[in-house]
């Protein structure tokens, strides 16, 4: 056998496969999240447009309208449209290098949001946009999706102009699963979408943006924190606040505190037996350039159950925190590609998480200290106002901050001094016991003529009566 001829290796084909974008990338994201990506594009459009409203309502006058029904999904906005100068980038799969720097505050980083949302829903799509003198339509047809070789999408100049600059995306030829969500499951889907917009877009809607789903505007659900008036030195309920600006230009503002009075033991016990609350404000909300990427998270991701902070439990139902990251360069924000999650390994986030835990410990400690004295603790909150995040930021200006320069992260913080009980006397003992509901109700009627009287008051009154009798 002669010497073998060396095998000639041809270069391998590593070009992208269209079906990867159409059928694989779309699996990473829920339908509701894909629609939020489209809303993100609307807001990015506002930030690009020249017309801006007042400082505290920068999104006023802008809106996005979403409509879905069997066979059709539409989103239309008046948020400035897609500039023709961005056409080479807006419709590419992924963000190519060489794209001009985006306007401050936008969240688009990866260049996949709009396309992924479209491919998630259907095979037929018309994008009509108007930006100044440019008006054009981009149509994606099922044949284009099925054709692996063609990557160019035809663009047509639109004949009619609209009153305001903006974009309308109409998606048809919906995938069966999506069509069913828009028809058979419409009630649940709309409820879920509305809930996600109300929570993840709460801060943007509060700042004037309007989101309309099937003709009805979404009411925001911002988290509110109890913030006592005064100069910040008195022992009253105020949030722990930390703020900083990192060396690479990310502004961070963190506030954690109480949303409501701490729960009674009865409330905690009931919750253990069955779900009493299906939706609570407890936990951490993380904002990146105004969008909530996490909402009321109560897991280790936000510091619960690690480094001295207990795992979340109903007794901590009153504790809630908000941390805001803001940066002109969205790639520096600690968020995932879906923009609805935190990049838990981000060095910036890990540093800030230290402060999140530090703040939480103050309120966990308060909750533990006042356990069993909830009625007394309630008085600390009665009459105080719970205010939304933006107001917390404004009110924070009058608080005495002190700078920390030798710790990580560096920044300015306000540490509230919360009212604490005078030390328990050594000879005091806690008594707790469990009795049949009907028996408790029966004693409650006997003592208070009210079968719904607080069970701990019933127990305490019984003790007091017997104590008095024993001393006669």
């Amino acid at each position, binding site marked *: 056998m002669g010497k073998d001829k060396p095998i000639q290796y041809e270069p391998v084909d590593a070009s992208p496969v269209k079906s990867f974008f159409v059928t694989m990338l779309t699996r990473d994201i829920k339908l509701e999240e894909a629609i939020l990506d489209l809303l993100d594009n609307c807001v990015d459009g506002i930030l690009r447009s020249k017309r801006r409203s007042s400082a505290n309502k920068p999104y006023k006058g802008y809106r996005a309208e979403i409509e879905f029904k069997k066979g059709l999904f539409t989103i239309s906005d008046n948020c400035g449209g897609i500039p023709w100068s961005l056409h080479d980038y807006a419709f590419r799969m992924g963000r190519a290098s060489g794209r001009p720097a985006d306007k401050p505050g936008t969240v688009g980083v990866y260049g996949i949001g709009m396309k992924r949302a479209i491919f998630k829903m259907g095979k037929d799509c018309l994008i009509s946009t108007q930006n100044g003198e440019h008006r054009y339509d981009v149509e994606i047809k099922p044949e284009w999706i099925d054709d692996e070789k063609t990557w160019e999408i035809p663009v047509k100049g639109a004949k009619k102009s609209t009153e305001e600059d903006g974009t309308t995306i109409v998606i048809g030829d919906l995938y069966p699963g999506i069509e069913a969500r828009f028809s058979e499951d419409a009630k*649940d*889907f709309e409820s879920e979408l509305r809930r996600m917009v109300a929570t993840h877009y709460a801060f943007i809607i509060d700042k004037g943006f309007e989101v309309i789903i099937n003709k009805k505007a979404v009411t925001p659900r911002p988290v509110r924190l109890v913030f006592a008036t005064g100069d910040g030195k008195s022992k009253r309920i105020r949030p722990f606040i930390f703020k900083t600006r990192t060396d690479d230009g990310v502004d961070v503002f963190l506030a954690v505190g109480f949303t409501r009075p701490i729960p009674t033991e009865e409330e905690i016990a009931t919750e253990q037996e069955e779900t*009493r609350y299906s939706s609570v404000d407890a936990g951490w909300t993380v904002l990146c350039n105004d969008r909530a990427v996490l909402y009321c998270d109560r897991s280790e991701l936000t510091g619960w159950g690690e480094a001295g902070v207990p795992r979340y439990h109903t007794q901590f139902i009153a504790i809630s925190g908000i941390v805001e990251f803001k940066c002109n360069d969205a790639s520096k924000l600690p968020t995932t590609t879906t923009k609805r999650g935190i990049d838990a390994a981000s060095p910036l986030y890990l540093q800030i998480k230290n402060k999140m835990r530090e703040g939480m410990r103050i309120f966990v400690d308060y909750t533990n200290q006042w356990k069993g004295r909830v009625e007394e603790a309630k008085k600390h909150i009665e009459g105080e106002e719970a205010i939304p995040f933006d107001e917390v930021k404004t009110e924070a200006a009058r608080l005495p901050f002190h700078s920390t320069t030798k710790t990580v992260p560096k920044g300015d913080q306000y540490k509230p001094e919360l009212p604490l009980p005078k030390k328990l006397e050594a000879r005091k003992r806690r008594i707790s016991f469990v009795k049949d509901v009907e028996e408790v109700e029966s004693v409650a009627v006997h003592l208070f003529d009210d079968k719904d009287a607080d069970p701990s008051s019933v127990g305490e009154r019984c003790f007091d009566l017997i104590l008095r009798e024993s001393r006669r």
Partner: protein
Amino acid sequence: MKHPPYHLRPNKAVDRLFLVEAIRRLDRLASLAEYTYYGLGGPYLEEFRLLYELCPEIKMVSIEEDEDTYRRQEFHLPCGTLRLEKSQFKSFLVRYESNDEQSIFWLDYTGLNYGNFEDFMALLGKVSENSMIKITLRAEPNDFLDKQNEKLGSGAERFRGQFGAVMPDSAADPPRSFFDFACLLQNMVQIAAQKVLPSTAPLVFQPISSFYYADGVGMFTLTGVVCRRDAAAATRKAFQDMDFSNLTWAKPKRIDLPILSTKERLHLQKLLPCRSGAGGILYAALGYLVDDDKPRTKAKLKQYADFHRYYPYFMKAVP
């Protein structure tokens, strides 16, 4: 344990008869002998008595956690085919297995809490096809009106906190009218059903009827059948001829019967059924008000015309 006189509540009695009417139509889907009825019958086991009279082939199980009520049930046992089980309903649900046999459940709650929706959802995931589930919930908007000194955690906040996961709009305040509140509860039941049986599941929860009524306390009730998605049309057809069926998640129907004496009812009987203008016709026949004013009297008598076939006679009997 004190109980209200369940057996003397006319609106609930009508609702109970509608359930029996619906159950009778189940034999268009499967043999009634293959069904087991599970209920929270209360001390008098009223619906079990009725069911035994009208559908004796159905097996029956009553679930009761209270010792004394359970003993009263033993006293009122209407037939030998009813099995009394002393158990918490949640615990019963954990142990319940359909074993591919059809069930009929009446989740007859007197209150309203999120756990009720959890029970309903748990059951939807466990029953076999062609099973029926009826859920009754308290529908009192006043329960969620702001109380004094409730600056934090207002009534609306409490409602959102409890039910946000199944509300159509988790940021909205609960409505203040009885009708709107009943509509909201129906939407919440529908959302709960779609969460457990989404369009990707082979089974679907098909509504059959929904009512709201008040015998002192406002209540909402909805009955539906868990059927194969591809057999939903056939299921709807089986209940199409039922009075006041609701096969499309339409608004619930009010049951609001007037209190009439037996003599009055017998007097009106010959005029029934009325094709149109029933309220006016019956009012003319009586010649006096049976409610606060003329429009209300006519509305109530229209209700009577609608539901008279299901309105039981409460008679004094010599034991």
